[in-house]
């Protein structure tokens, strides 16, 4: 546990040592707000809630989160510092979780920076703050599940661009698998249980539950399971590379 925190601390420091953290946070805040106002019709709806704000999160996160995750391992491989890290007296699991937590903390900070949106709706009306809190929590879980995918893919390469493109594609699949249009495309030629399996893997469906304020154990468990699976894959990939 101690080692996980030390690694997370170093990694989080790494984000802030370069303009990366500030640019990411600024872009995240700008895009989420812009989507809420222009695409979501924040004012036009005449309702004091943050639905237009949270509705677009999956689509933004699918692009932004891989940009946060791509450096986690690819950069270490490129610079060779992975050799230093992995010959220190730590386990692969500690390194994987530490790095993941650092990136996840970055997401928490980025989400926290959008708090003026929340303050604004409270000023304009009296929204259900429980729903908003649940939605924030859901968005954070969703970003964690994307991050875990991005981290595992980052471990496979030393090229950050490849890591970004692949992670975005995989994250996209996990979002799309919940859309009716996509499921219909499979409907004609895949058995029913496969369709159900595909849609049950969808990040979108589970996120929507939380964004609506429905804090279900099932949705929370889903995201934590996804994170665990991808982090496990991350550990396997790192260990696998030691034998080749």
């Amino acid at each position, binding site marked *: 546990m*101690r*080692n996980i925190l*030390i*690694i997370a601390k*170093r990694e989080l*420091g*790494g984000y802030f*040592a*370069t303009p990366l953290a500030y640019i990411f946070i600024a872009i995240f805040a700008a895009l989420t707000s812009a989507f809420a106002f222009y695409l979501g019709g924040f004012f036009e709806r005449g309702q004091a809630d943050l639905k237009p704000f949270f509705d677009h999160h999956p689509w933004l996160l699918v692009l932004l989160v891989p940009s946060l995750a791509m450096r986690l391992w690819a950069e270490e491989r490129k*610079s*060779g*510092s*992975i*050799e*230093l890290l*992995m*010959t*220190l*007296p*730590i*386990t692969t699991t500690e390194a994987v979780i530490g790095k993941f937590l650092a990136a996840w903390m970055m997401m928490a900070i980025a989400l926290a920076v959008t708090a003026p949106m929340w303050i604004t709706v409270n000023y304009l009306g009296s929204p259900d703050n429980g729903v908003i809190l649940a939605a924030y929590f859901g968005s954070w879980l969703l970003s964690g599940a994307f991050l875990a995918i991005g981290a595992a893919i980052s471990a496979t390469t030393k090229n950050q661009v490849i890591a970004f493109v692949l992670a975005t594609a995989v994250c996209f699949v996990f979002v799309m698998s919940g859309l009716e249009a996509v499921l219909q495309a499979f409907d004609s030629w895949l058995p029913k249980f496969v369709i159900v399996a595909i849609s049950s893997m969808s990040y979108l469906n589970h996120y929507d539950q939380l964004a609506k304020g429905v804090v279900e154990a099932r949705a929370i468990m889903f995201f934590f399971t996804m994170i665990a699976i991808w982090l496990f894959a991350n550990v396997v990939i790192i260990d696998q590379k*030691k*034998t*080749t």
Partner: protein
Amino acid sequence: MTDHIVLNQLTKMFGHLCAVDCITLRVKRGEVLGFIGPNGAGKSTTMKMATGFLIPDSGSVEICGASMIKDEKKAKRFIGYLPEGAPAYGDMTPFTFLRFISDIRGYGSSETLSRIDKAVDRAELGGVIHQRIETLSKGFKRRVGLAQAILHEPPVLILDEPTDGLDPNQKFHVRSLIKEISSDTAIVISTHILEEVEAVCSRTVLIDRGQVVFDGTPGELQALDRKHNAMVVRVHTNHAAEIKSLLEALGSVKQVEENTHVNGVVTLTAIASNTGAIAADVAEAVAGADLRVEEITINPGRLDEVFRDLTTSDTRSDNA
């Protein structure tokens, strides 16, 4: 006393290429082992397996009695490692980087500071500890890596090309540092700078194509040179032929090579049969002839000659 580093029949394949072929090595405390060999001979791969970065296909690694496979974390605690190219986190400063290493090594905050002080002092990083590592010169980066490796004063130190990219003063400093800590440490240094082997190593292991081809002291390696103990005699051109025939007449001389003519002076190299000592014979013969000789020196043998003999001979036959 048990050996600090035990590599037992290490083998590593990269696809069809056998990078390390059944290498067995034991290194004791107090030994400075110079690991030499041509590029691609398997030096770095062996070090990566010794430090647990790569897992061998077969064979075992034990560091101070701890198995690198069964008890990885414990074994890694005993090692200070400078990987090839001295990688570090470029966005950190040497100070924050060393603090991170110290945290991982489990030191409390007061001990961390004293250890960083000592390592910074030993690696002579004083002036740059608050500059970002990526802005430092190659020599400083290498020393940051070195400071990181010696921070916890490990019983086993593995350094992959520690003086690569350093200027002669810095090389001298790193070598003195290695000598300073060598008495209670088992040290392995890989290098392709042969003068380094003579300067700091008590033992040298030459590997070629994944196999150990020589294991002994640098002196013993030098003695393998066919010109070991040869006498180099420099005489005026006028007397060259006469002296040459005198030397050739000696029973202990196998062959005399006539090398360079510079400013009317010829260099004759009398190669000893069986690389034995022939200094007395040669001196006597030359003195008896009553001819003016400019200079007589003993050739101790050259490591680079032996290196070439031991490592290129089979490559050639392989390529043929």
